[in-house]
């Protein structure tokens, strides 16, 4: 255990120097690209917002099943089968047919080639389940059908969320999928998440529909409230235009009325439809409905064929900007709920960094002092190894551009406290060996050899705990497990290479000295 070849010494020195250099790149700026890396600070240290959003898919399911009623009716109409009493109850579609058609219905729904009910060969499942019941059928989404639906609405929602956040222009946002109905948003450096929260909380489903006085409209009609007053109007369910037809939307100042408005440009299809609808309905009120509330319902005075228009509704400049942003980035497929939020202000983050650093320095100093008093010259060796260990640990975190959190700093301090353990085990063992062995070299050698199993066992147990934490923990806790886990490896390196090398160098020069340790 005591022999080091020249090559090995050079190698150890180079590795140590390399990591010291890397670690110091957090403080100094290097022009070299390899060296110019930095540890990322977690949201708890640099300030920022962590939001976990959950997609509420039930309206999507309802809507899809609602659309399906028409599809089913038409599909079987072609086959001369009349679908009777079709209605939607609690995400179950119920209908009945004449008895002679029952078998045909079942076969159609269970046909793997049918486009009415797509079949997923990979999961051996249809999109929809059909069950027979007294007097008819129940159709609902199969487990796999729900999964497919959730995945696709998650994909769409992720895209819309990204667009909305990009529009606001926060730096380096992190937007990730979680499970099949959640989206994780991390916004570093964001002080006040109110605006983003309110923007993400809106579905932004925009429709243009006529106000009718006749509730027996052939498409059906519904009573809707106005955005800022409690007034209501009956609005047709027939959609003239939707947000999908918008090409662009911008906040503007209307010079005539001195009012902030949102001006929009329509795509070709939209412009055509808008022109047609406005020319045929001059004098009627056109309601602009956003997420089930009427923003405004202006009277059509003239045909609008230009494919552009304005929405007014008592906006402030801020609210007009936000609405334009929402319209530009598109509607969410389903409402999003914020189910977890953690926001840290930048000054608390800075306070945490300061506190963490002070704790690190004091903890480090106390440990070093204690070891120095206890082991004298070997304490010095341990301490040198400990300092290099700290540099290597920070260096490794820097190379991987890992995220440092406040618990992560605690993990580093804890590593400092526990890192001396291995050296203590070795030195105490050597002391014991020296009781029976006069030859320093032999005693040191067997001290290293005999303490090895205990050291490895002890470190594996800590490593196991760190690994579990890494996979089970979130955010800040992950940072803790990372530093703790990486710390184990750097500690073993510093103990078995650096401290051992220094010990060997010292012992071989003083091998005849008594009471060496």
């Amino acid at each position, binding site marked *: 255990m005591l022999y080091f070849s020249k090559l090995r010494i050079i190698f150890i020195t180079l590795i140590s120097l390399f990591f010291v250099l890397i670690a110091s790149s957090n403080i100094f700026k290097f022009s070299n690209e390899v060296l110019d890396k930095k540890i990322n600070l977690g949201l708890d240290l640099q300030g920022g917002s962590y939001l976990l959003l959950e997609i509420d898919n039930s309206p999507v399911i309802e809507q899809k099943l609602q659309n399906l009623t028409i599809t089913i009716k038409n599909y079987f109409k072609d086959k001369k089968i009349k679908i009777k009493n079709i209605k939607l109850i609690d995400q179950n579609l119920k209908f009945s047919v004449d008895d002679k058609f029952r078998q045909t219905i079942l076969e159609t729904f269970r046909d793997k080639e049918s486009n009415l009910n797509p079949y997923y060969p990979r999961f051996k499942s249809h999109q929809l389940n059909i069950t027979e019941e007294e007097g008819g059928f129940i159709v609902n989404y199969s487990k796999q059908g729900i999964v497919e639906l959730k995945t696709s609405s998650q994909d769409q929602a992720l895209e819309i969320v990204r667009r909305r956040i990009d529009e606001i222009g926060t730096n380096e946002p992190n937007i990730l999928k979680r499970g099949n109905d959640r989206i994780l948003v991390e916004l570093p450096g964001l002080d006040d998440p*109110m605006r983003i929260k309110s923007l993400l909380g809106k579905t932004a489903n925009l429709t243009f529909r006529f106000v009718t006085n006749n509730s027996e409209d052939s498409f059906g009609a519904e009573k809707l409230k106005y955005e800022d007053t409690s007034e209501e109007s009956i609005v047709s369910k027939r959609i003239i235009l939707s947000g999908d037809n918008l090409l662009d939307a911008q906040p503007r100042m209307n010079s005539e009325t001195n009012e902030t408005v949102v001006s929009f440009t329509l795509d070709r299809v939209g412009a055509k439809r808008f022109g047609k609808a406005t020319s045929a309905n001059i004098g009627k009120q056109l309601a602009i409905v956003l997420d089930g509330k009427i923003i405004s319902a202006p009277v059509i005075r003239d045909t609008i064929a230009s494919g552009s228009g304005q929405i007014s509704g008592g906006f402030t400049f801020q609210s007009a900007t936000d609405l334009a942003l929402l319209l530009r980035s598109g509607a969410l497929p389903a409402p999003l709920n914020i189910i977890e939020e953690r*926001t840290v202000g930048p000054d608390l983050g800075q306070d*945490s960094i300061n506190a963490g650093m002070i704790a690190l320095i004091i903890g480090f100093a*106390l440990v070093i002092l204690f070891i120095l008093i206890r082991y004298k010259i070997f304490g010095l060796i341990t301490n040198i190894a400990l300092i290099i260990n700290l540099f290597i640990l920070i260096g490794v975190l820097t190379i991987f551009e890992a995220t440092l959190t*406040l618990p992560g700093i605690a993990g580093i301090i804890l590593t400092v406290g526990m890192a001396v353990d291995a050296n*203590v085990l070795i030195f*105490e063992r050597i002391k014991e060996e020296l009781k029976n062995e006069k030859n320093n070299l032999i005693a040191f050698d067997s001290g290293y050899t005999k303490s090895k199993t205990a050291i490895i066992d002890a470190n594996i147990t800590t490593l196991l*705990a760190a690994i579990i934490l890494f996979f089970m923990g979130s955010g800040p*806790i992950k940072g803790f497990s990372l530093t703790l886990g990486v710390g184990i490896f750097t500690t073993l390196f510093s103990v078995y290479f650096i401290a051992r090398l220094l010990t060997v160098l010292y012992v071989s020069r003083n091998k005849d000295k008594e009471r060496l340790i």
Partner: protein
Amino acid sequence: MIAFNRYYNKFNILSISLVVISLLFLIFKGLNFGIDFKGGTLIELRSTDSKINVSSLRDKLNQMNLGDVSVKKFGNETDFLIKFEVDNNKNIIEEIKQNFDKSYGNNFDFRRVENVGPKVSAELLRSGVIAISVALALMLIYIWIRFEWQFSLGAILALFHDVIVTLGLFSLLGLEINLSIIAAVLTIVGYSMNDTVVIFDRVRENLRKYSDIKIFDLTNISINETLSRTLITSITTLLALLSIFFFGGEVLKGFSLAMIFGVIFGTYSSIYIANTVLVRLRVSQKTILKDEEKN
């Protein structure tokens, strides 16, 4: 040499009582779960006006229908921690902000806001329990591979002791259990195991060396031989933890306190629980030789 073995019985009775008392506390008083596991909202405030105090803040918040509101000083005089469970109002933070601005002027800095929904908190609690269980199971498997079953049993009993007593102490003192406490408990599991394994390693070595010494004395020899290491490592770890506790800021207080308890219990249990299990199971040289023949 210190005669640790003379107190084996007494400390076993003490440990059993501690575990029973802790379990009683955990069952009847329960743990003070933070918003991570209970759901709710947490706000850390800093005021620039030193006249603002806890009771006035509490009165203001009680008028807002937030259910059970807790307002505490947090660290220094001008920092406050507000917690409540109501979760059905999406804009509650904004409303509180406006309310405070109206009553106190613009004198507040919202330093930290955390809001955990009931679904998420249930999931966090479940994954925390799973993490600790998996950790205990992995330790069990590891030590079962490395040592004979008598040793595994000793180590696991020591682990359970440390975890239960630490949590019992948290229950007794009413300290908050949040995500970082789970991290602390897992680290305690690692540390306690580490300590036990080092002594066990020595016990096994001595079992091979001396065939004529009874396990009762053998454990004592092993404890004494490893004692200085046990103490030095505990001291350096405690130095680091005390430094986090006193200087690492409010956020890490609970975490470092749990760890400090854990290190103390861990050190105690590796001497007085793990070893006494070996004694009570009458481990002898045969135990380890039989196992080694098998391999």
